[in-house]
């Protein structure tokens, strides 16, 4: 029956509109490639960025239009049942399209700075995004695999885009080898599930399970185990996460941000759909696995992030920690839990893209300055970047008035409602651990310039005039974490050799203030604005995620 998808292509009743966002993101790179091949001279990178931005916006528009179609009419399928047109898939499409637009903005600034020409970044990113969308909307295991491969193969190449840096090539190679390995496992899982149920179509699998007692079917359970491993690899759950730090660190920074948002979105969307919708009846079998994996993912991600000095590695472990949170929502196996996971996934996409966009700028030409030391005293040199990064990191830490807080809140309340008390507690503990390494960066940015000296004690600024340097709202600035010294906060490798002081720490002589390309600044502002706005004005996105889950096919 899996071949029905192919035969369906020749049938006239394909609802092209249902896969419009994917089509846009598949067609646009082909056009870009053709343009680049046919044009007589090298086109500036801005042309491709414009193309990708336009494609992203078009796909975003198409996704929003689909949303308006889905909400009144309810969920449905298209292309002979291979594609699910429901709120869940459309919301992921909205997220991925938005990330595409942001990635175009960030990539333009990055590629211009690094002097990397050509359409490769844009083309691959769009293919990858289309793959992620396909994963989210596929209603058939084979189609999920197809989406997974479209997404992944493009990502492998993207990881190695910066050919001049050895780390980039290494990242691509590692990602590719392990990715191929996990894809093979995933594919084998599909085969076993097909063997057990006679179908790869998700509703048909669910239907089969509803009418047959298959819970003790070793074939089916083994297939589920293999599928889980494939998904766990993509979403970087422990112990399938080991590629993550190396790949996140080695990839060009904008690619890392894109990867973190899109690969997680695609992987989680498919994982949630397959296990909640198709294998929902077997939850007693898979829930304990998710429970244990969520626990180790939460803890390993948080603990290992603590000991990182490289910001990209730290954020890689942080993304692992976030994956643990999203798994907690799946573990609840309730509608509310899925809605919480979806909400988390959605807002995390904006947070992580924004964060890596800031990291891109701070890394400077060469994309190398990722040591925590580069962030010391950033608030004085780059107040805009520091403020945005502080906001995004606080959001990731789950501080109220940001979407990050609401995301953690909904996940934990879903876990509590599903009586997973232990898991809820562990998630909160891991969030507390994680808060440390986020705040460490914030403290370094804002207090690090006065290196060696302790941070100002709370309220010191109201007494001493020197606190006035922080601008209009000086009493606010008085809120500092305790009197720990900045050097102590900087991690396990004190740097006695590094010259201290504002502006110190980088060998490059570039001027600081002028360093933010306008396109990247716009992307950062969009991400931070989204995070703050919908953190305060919570209702719309929360409602979106809730509706999307209710409109589950």
């Amino acid at each position, binding site marked *: 029956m899996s071949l029905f998808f192919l035969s369906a292509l020749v049938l006239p009743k394909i609802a092209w509109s249902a896969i419009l966002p994917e089509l846009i993101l598949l067609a646009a790179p082909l056009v870009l490639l053709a343009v680049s091949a046919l044009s007589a001279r090298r086109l500036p990178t801005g042309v491709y960025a414009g193309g990708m931005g336009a494609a992203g916006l078009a796909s975003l528009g198409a996704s929003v239009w689909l949303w308006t179609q889905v909400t009144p009419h309810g969920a449905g399928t298209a292309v002979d049942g291979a594609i699910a047109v429901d709120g869940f898939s459309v919301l992921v499409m909205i997220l991925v399209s938005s990330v595409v637009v942001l990635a175009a903005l960030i990539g333009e600034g990055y590629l211009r700075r690094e002097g990397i020409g050509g359409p490769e970044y844009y083309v691959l990113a769009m293919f990858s995004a289309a793959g992620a969308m396909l994963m989210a909307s596929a209603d058939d295991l084979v189609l999920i695999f197809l989406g997974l491969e479209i997404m992944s193969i493009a990502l492998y190449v993207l990881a190695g885009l910066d050919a001049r840096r050895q780390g980039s090539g290494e990242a691509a190679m*590692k990602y590719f080898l392990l990715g191929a390995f996990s894809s093979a496992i995933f594919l084998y899982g599909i085969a076993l599930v097909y063997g057990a149920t006679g179908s790869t179509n998700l509703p048909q699998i669910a239907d089969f399970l509803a009418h047959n007692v298959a819970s003790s079917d070793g074939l089916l359970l*083994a297939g589920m185990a293999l599928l889980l491993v494939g998904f766990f690899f993509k979403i970087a759950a422990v112990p399938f996460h080991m590629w993550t730090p190396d790949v996140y660190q080695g990839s060009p920074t904008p690619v890392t941000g894109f990867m973190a948002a899109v690969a997680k979105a695609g992987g989680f969307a498919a994982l949630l759909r397959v296990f909640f919708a198709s294998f929902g009846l077997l939850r007693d079998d898979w829930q304990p*696995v998710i429970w244990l994996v969520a626990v180790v993912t939460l803890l390993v991600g948080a*603990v290992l992030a603590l000991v990182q000095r490289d910001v990209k590695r730290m954020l890689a472990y942080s993304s692992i920690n976030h994956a643990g949170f999203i798994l907690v929502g799946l573990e609840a196996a309730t509608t509310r839990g899925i809605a919480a996971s979806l909400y988390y996934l959605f807002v995390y996409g904006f947070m992580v893209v924004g964060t890596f966009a800031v990291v891109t700028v701070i890394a400077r030409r060469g994309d190398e300055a990722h040591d925590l030391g580069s962030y010391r005293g950033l608030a004085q040199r780059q107040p805009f970047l520091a403020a945005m990064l502080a906001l995004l990191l606080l959001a990731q830490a789950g501080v109220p008035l940001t979407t990050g807080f609401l995301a953690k*809140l909904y996940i934990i309340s879903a876990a509590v409602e599903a009586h997973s008390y232990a898991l809820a507690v562990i998630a909160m503990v891991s969030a507390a651990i994680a808060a440390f390494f986020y705040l460490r960066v914030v403290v370094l940015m804002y207090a690090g310039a006065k290196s060696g000296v302790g941070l100002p004690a709370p309220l010191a*600024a109201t007494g001493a005039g020197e606190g006035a340097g922080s601008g209009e709202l000086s009493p606010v600035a008085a809120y500092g974490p305790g009197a720990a010294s900045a050097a102590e906060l900087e991690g396990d490798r004190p740097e006695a050799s590094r010259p201290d002081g504002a502006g110190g720490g980088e060998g490059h002589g570039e001027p600081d203030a002028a360093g933010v390309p306008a396109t990247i600044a716009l992307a950062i502002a969009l991400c931070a604005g989204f995070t703050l706005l919908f953190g305060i004005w919570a209702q719309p996105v929360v409602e979106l995620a809730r509706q999307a889950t209710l409109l589950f096919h």
Partner: protein
Amino acid sequence: MLHAAYLMPLFPLAGFAVLAVFGRKIGNPLAGWLATGTVTASFAIALVTLAGMIGEPASHRSFVETLFTWIPVSALHVQVGFLIDPLSLVMVLFVTGVSAVIHWYSIGYMAHDEGYARFFVYLNLFVASMLILVMASNLVFTFVGWEGVGLCSYFLIAFWYDRPAAASAGKKAFIMNRVGDAGFLLAMFVLFNALHTLSIPAILAHLGDLSTGTATAAALLLFLAATGKSAQIPLFTWLPDAMEGPTPVSALIHAATMVTAGVYLMVRMSPLLHRATDVSEVIAIVGVATALVAATIASTQNDIKKVIAYSTVSQIGYMFLAVGVGAYTAAIFLMVAHAFYKSLLFLSAGSVIHGLHDEQDIKKMGGLRKFMPWTFAAFMAGWLAIAGVPPLSAFWAKGAVLVHAFSYDIGLWIVGAITAVFTAYYMGREFYIVFYGDERWRRLEVIKGDPHESPWVMRGPLVILSVLAAIGGLLDLPFHPHLDFLSSWLAPVVGSVSRHSSVGVGGEWALAITDSVLAVIGVTLAWRLWRVTADARHLEPAFLQRAWLVDETYDKIFARGGEALAGFLANVVEAKIIDGAVNGTASGLRWMGSGLRRIQTGYVRNYAIGIVLGLVAILAWMLVRAGV
């Protein structure tokens, strides 16, 4: 009717945002005018809303305007919404109106200050918070405004943060308010636990479901919050210290608006007090006791602003007395009238301080009436108004409170009447010491040359407020049923829970005449004792000058005791137990991290082994489940 209540806080909030970012660039004086403009715009919208509301029948004058759900968590749905009814509209009108005038005045008063733009940043944020406080449709959102005004109060008291006294006064205000805020939070917990809602209309509609005990607890906790914000016994000592802030702040926040928020909260929740009559009695007693204590202290202070500050505490005591005896309209009436004459007094005092280059000791002033005729006249209007001299505003407003107190319990009335004499006396004392007698500033060389009258931007507000302080009584005249505008206006909100006085028309006349006599006694005393001399130590007992030693007692019990406890906690509990645990955890985690890190070898083959091991584990589990 205009359904755009959200615009009212939005304007000052936008002003805050713009000034916070661009304030310095906009500069002096444009930043001040911008801030004034935003508040005036809010006032205009309030007027339009009022006009619309007057056109509606009384039963249709209340509506909730919900913008969006702020916190949707299972059963708890906290809306960002505004409750517009006659009560909140009265509050909005006088808050925005008085704020606009004081913003205007500040343009002149703060003209030479380095923090000019910063001042208006805080001031605009304050107005926005205050409007949220009075208009919020649920207690959580009210609390946002409640905390917002507290925060702005802290910022503005400590505005000159390089002065240690100002910095510590800011902290004191903030900390004492925290005590009250804890009461607010607990009250919300109690109410939510019992009624599963925090929406104010819903709470008030379902009060019948509350047990008497719960209602009493909630009402008492809310009253605790009110004593903090409104500086009542036992939490009143922060307000006199708050005079370290710039004078317009004292007028706006620490006289007219923020400190009356507690009274507003009580009136807003008056049906709850109606269910908890014991609490009403407590409120009445606390209120009248505060009124008397503060009035006695005010009679002996030598700081021009501290006299007025204690006077504020005393006057708010009257308002709580009114709340306690169930005269909610009288409480609001006095609040509005008080806003007029008290901000007038503060702004006049500010004018004096301005003219004498920041001198605040009244014993160094004297004979200023020749040099500052406008200020002199304004201050006199304020004094006679607060004294209750007919037909100025306090005569009517305070009179209404005292009539209800008399009808409730004669003991309360007696204390209130004695306080009235003190009120006329202490303000008269200040008036004569400042504007009559020797020109002591000349001998003490406070300034070079003669003091100058303030510029017109400061005189204009004085004139407006003088007129309002004089005619404010028109809002709610007794004797004739068509003249009690405020009472009939507020009737849909508080009418059913108000207590009606049993005094009768003859009694009201008698009480009004008594009030006038009391006022005249106070005025005469001040005139006889202080017109010529400023030196009469026997009239200023040290016990009263030191404010009944309350600060010292608090210092001994709470500050010293707290310090000792804190020392124990810091040196023993924190250093040994908590730090030990935290550092232990931290080093444990770090150790774990370093250990785990070794798995991260960088070799693909090892990573693949990780995947395989994970796969084997999951497969093993599944096969166990399958029973293989």
